[in-house]
């Protein structure tokens, strides 16, 4: 049996009003991949921050390499070989790969303090050889994909001789092939005796990559299991504390009239000749790998990034949409993928967020009716079961799932009947996911027409009536209800051969 490199004994962390971790015993072995799962707010991130020294635990001991330690600051843990790689790597986009890897521990001449560039570049080349030899030491980060940036972060960890590598949601923004490459790199790191702490919402990934899995819920460690002893269902049950009966509560709806038809929509470098149509009561799943061009298509329809050519018909009439203002006027709504940047205003309250697209209906001749505003916000946040201390709470203090609900709620108040959802459940926990799915399904049953972009195959398969698949800017397949299988969809998504 491998040695325990890290042991946590009876760790608790108290925040004002919240016990974030409650008596956690946890261990990590050399050469293992240990997955942490749990809903948002279950305590995973707090645990990671205690391991890396960003937080100090209120109670309990940390034993690292057989010695009890207490980190004075996060830098100390890094120097001792604990590296954390976050969802969106925090690196300097305008510097090159080598500079990023050695940021903070440049090799320099002791007397002149001159950086020894040649050594830096040689070392980088060596590190990159095993990760991805196509990334050159002098490449600027800005030209790299998110997956490549993660590799740079891993290289940085290795350059500091990390013993423990913590990966927080590393695959959430990666395509399938990129994820697979990452998994094989994780496998290699494991062979080298590194201990890897792998945090993910994607349970499929956990089953592929992990040796053991630990489940957190409400600050408590529910259990640590060998991966072969658990199933998808049993993990979810441990995570939410009850059986999630129905993650995809799809209601069968008879489809009505065509409300949106797209003909040969093209935008240079993004997508080409995209055509499809959408009906009342329909949920059209829009699948593809990250970067296939689905978001760009949705944004073009909604008037955010205009297409070069092609036609958009709404309820049979051709329309020119030049900005979101016009799109909303025509009954469209778009719930963007990067919620915090485009979907909601973090720095203001729930009411203001919800009334933003419908200011006209909560005002008289430009005069804001604050009571009407609050009434509307109340109605829709209640309908979506937004959990908050009050409607005047700032959205930035809500959990991911509740932020997403606010981002949806603002469009329900509008008169829009054609809804474009871009990754509606990205990064939210299982409970909130089921709630959002239920809600989307109910909307369709009320006659809304829904285009749902998703990179999660189970979601696409579980929620859609018909499925549209895109690959590198081209629509490669369209599956009518019941025609699609997992294999067929994947096949269309990874190659343009029908």
């Amino acid at each position, binding site marked *: 049996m491998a040695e325990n490199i890290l042991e946590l004994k009876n760790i608790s962390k108290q925040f004002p009003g919240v016990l974030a971790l409650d008596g956690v015993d946890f261990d990590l072995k050399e050469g293992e991949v240990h997955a942490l799962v749990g809903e948002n707010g279950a305590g995973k991130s707090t645990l990671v921050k205690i391991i890396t020294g960003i937080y100090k635990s209120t109670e309990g001991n940390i034993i690292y390499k057989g010695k009890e330690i207490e980190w004075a600051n996060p830098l100390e843990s890094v120097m001792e070989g604990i590296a954390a790689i976050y969802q969106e790597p925090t690196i300097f986009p305008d510097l090159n790969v080598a500079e990023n890897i050695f940021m903070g521990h440049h090799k320099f001449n002791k007397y002149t303090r001159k950086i020894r560039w040649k050594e830096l570049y040689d070392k980088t080349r060596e590190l990159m050889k095993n990760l991805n030899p196509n990334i050159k030491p002098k490449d600027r980060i800005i030209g790299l994909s998110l997956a490549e940036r993660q590799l740079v972060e891993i290289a940085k960890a290795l350059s500091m001789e990390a013993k423990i590598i913590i990966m927080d949601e590393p695959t959430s923004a990666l395509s399938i092939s990129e994820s697979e490459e990452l998994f094989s790199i994780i496998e290699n790191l494991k062979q080298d005796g590194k201990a890897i702490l792998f945090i993910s919402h994607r349970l499929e990934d956990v089953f592929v990559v992990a040796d053991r899995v630990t489940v957190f819920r409400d600050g408590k460690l529910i259990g640590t299991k060998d991966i072969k002893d658990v199933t998808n269902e049993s993990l979810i049950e441990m995570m939410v504390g009850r059986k999630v009966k129905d993650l995809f509560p799809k209601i069968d709806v008879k489809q009505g009239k065509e409300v949106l038809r797209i003909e040969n929509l093209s935008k240079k470098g993004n997508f080409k000749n995209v055509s499809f149509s959408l009906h009342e009561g329909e949920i059209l799943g829009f699948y593809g790998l990250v970067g296939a061009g689905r978001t760009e298509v949705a944004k073009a329809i909604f008037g955010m990034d205009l297409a070069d050519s092609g036609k958009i018909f709404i309820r049979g009439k051709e329309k020119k949409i030049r900005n979101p203002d016009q799109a909303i006027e025509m009954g469209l709504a778009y719930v963007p993928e990067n919620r915090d940047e485009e979907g909601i205003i973090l*720095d203001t309250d729930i009411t203001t967020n919800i009334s933003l697209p419908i200011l006209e209906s909560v005002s008289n001749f430009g005069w804001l009716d604050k009571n009407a505003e609050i009434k509307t916000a109340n109605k829709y946040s209640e309908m979506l079961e937004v959990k908050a201390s009050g409607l005047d709470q700032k959205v930035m203090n809500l959990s991911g799932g509740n932020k997403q609900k606010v981002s949806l709620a603002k469009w329900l108040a509008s008169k829009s009947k054609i809804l474009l959802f871009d990754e509606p459940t990205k990064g939210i926990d299982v409970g909130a996911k089921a709630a959002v799915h239920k809600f989307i399904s109910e909307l369709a049953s009320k006659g809304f027409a829904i285009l749902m972009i998703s990179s999660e195959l189970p979601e696409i398969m579980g929620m859609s009536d018909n499925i549209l698949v895109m690959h590198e800017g081209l629509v490669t397949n369209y599956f009518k209800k019941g025609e699609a299988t997992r294999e067929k969809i994947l096949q269309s998504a990874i190659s343009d051969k029908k």
Partner: protein
Amino acid sequence: MEMIDKSKKTFSVKSFFLRWEVLLLLIFIVYNIIIIFTTPYYLDINNIFDMTFIFTEKGLVALIMAFIIITGNVDLSVASIMGLSSVAMAASYQAGVNIWAAFLIGLLIGTSAGFLNGMIITRLSLPAIIITLATYSFYRGIAYVILGNEAVSGFTKKFSYIGQGYIGNSPVPFPLIIFLIIAVISIIILHRTTFGRMVYAIGLNEKAAFASGIPIKKIKLLLFTLSGFMSGFAGMIITSRIGNTRPNIATGFELEIITIVILGGVMITGGVGNMWGVFISIVLISTIRYGLGFHNVPGQIMLVVTGGLLISSILINNFLKTFVSNRVLKR
């Protein structure tokens, strides 16, 4: 399932005193109590009204500047537009145009200059700070081209009413009334209308505002055009008040105006601010200048005072905020 607590927001003394405009008001009151007891004639009604002449021009432009800064933009060209429109008006008058026609030309030039700013910023999607930095030199340059180093004076008596006149036989200056009307309108528009809400939304998150159907470009264009118009109008007032003009008139006003807005609690990064704060800030700065004038404090010292005031109010506000949040944590 636990839901949103619908109970109304309760009034809290603590958060009331943390509000920037309340802090400013306190500074205003404390300052005035001190200065009243140390300065004879300070409370003289005629003196007080005459004091307002020195702030109405900058105050008017500051009101519009507040909207622009709340959207996360800034207009550095306002003082140059004041200069350009003043010079344009004077040059037309010199060329024999009727004084009121010249006045309208001045307004038109100011409005057009603001419109041009707005067009460049919205069409090319460039940062306002860069574009207005360019037009800051450009408009001032044109003013020099038109008048050279000449000064123009000798406007008609009637024109001097705009900047020097009183309402009837009262001691109330005409420009003050204009300023108060515009201030009330600005407060209402920013805090009570959908337009004001959109202005905040743009400053807080422009992308999200755009994706929510807010006509960002129209609003920015409108605000910069308004800023040009108001600068043109302020240019007319200052020309009328001084009774002459040169190409360097109102030089440096833009920074004073921006300082007033920032002191009023408007965040330079956008999205945060309050028109009441800006209003109090205008009045505070003027009374300080007025009061220190009685004690023969020279103008240069005023710069020290203004700068010091800005830094110390930020420090006091930060101190109060950390003090309160520490108290909350310890509970």
